[in-house]
C-alpha cells in the first residue's frame, strides 16, 4: 500500500551542526540532471514541515577519519566531492542532520537549473577516491 511522505522534522538529530571547517563527502560523478533526479526522489519520499523536502545526501567527516569513512561507505565510487561545510553554506545551502550520524541532507529550495548549477559549484571538483575498490572480496592475483 503506498504511503505518505516521511516527515523529517521530528526525525532530525538533535546535535550541533558541524564546524565550518568540517569536510563533507559525496560520492560522484554528479551532473545537474542527476542532482535534480536525486533531489526529486528525496522530495517524493520525505517532507519537512509538511512540504516536500528537496535535497541530496552527504556524509560529514565526524567521529572517524576521512579514509575510514571512504573505506566503509564510498568504496564503490571512483570519485568523490569533498567540500567543507563552510563552502556549502557560502553558496546558500543548508545542512539537515537526517538519518544516522554522520549523514546529512543538503537542502535545496527549487532544484531548478540555477540552483543545481550553484550546487555543483559548491560541491567543487571531483577528486579521485583513494579508497575506491578497497574490496572485502578476495581477488585472484595475476
Amino acid at each position, binding site marked *: *500500500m*503506498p*504511503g*505518505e*511522505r*516521511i516527515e523529517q522534522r521530528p*526525525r532530525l538529530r538533535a546535535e550541533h551542526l558541524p564546524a565550518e571547517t568540517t569536510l563533507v563527502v*559525496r*560520492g*560522484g*560523478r554528479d551532473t545537474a540532471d*542527476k542532482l535534480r533526479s*536525486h533531489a526529486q*526522489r*528525496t522530495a*517524493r*519520499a*520525505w517532507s519537512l514541515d509538511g512540504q516536500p523536502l528537496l535535497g*541530496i*545526501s*552527504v*556524509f560529514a567527516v565526524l567521529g572517524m577519519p576521512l579514509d575510514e569513512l571512504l573505506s566503509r*561507505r564510498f*568504496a*564503490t*565510487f*571512483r570519485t568523490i566531492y569533498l567540500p567543507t561545510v563552510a563552502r556549502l553554506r557560502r553558496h546558500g545551502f543548508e545542512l539537515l542532520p*537526517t*538519518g*544516522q550520524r554522520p*549523514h546529512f541532507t543538503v537542502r535545496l529550495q527549487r532544484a531548478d537549473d540555477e540552483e543545481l548549477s550553484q550546487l555543483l559549484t559548491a560541491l567543487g571538483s571531483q577528486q579521485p577516491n583513494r579508497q575506491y*575498490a578497497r*574490496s*572485502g*572480496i*578476495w*581477488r*585472484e592475483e595475476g
Partner: protein
Amino acid sequence: MYRVDIAADLNDEDETGYVWAFLDEARDPAQITPGALVVAGDEDAAAVCQVIDLAPAGGGTIVHLRLLPGLVDDYRALVDRALAS
C-alpha cells in the same frame, strides 16, 4: 557503464542506516524481495546490495538496501572462479 536492477543514489540513507530507493524505479519490481541480491545505483556508480525490506512511503514503496562489499566486477570474478572447471 552499469545497467542496474534498481535506480538509487548510493549516497542516500535514512534513519535505518540503509540505502533506500523506490520500488517503481526497479527494472523488474517483482524481483525486489527481501533477501534478494540486486545491483543498485546508476550507470556510473553501482553496487551489489541485499534487499532488506520494503515499506510504503511517498506514494510508493521504499526499498531498503544493504550495501555489500566490493565492486560489481569483483562478484563476476568470484562467480567465474567458482564455476571454473
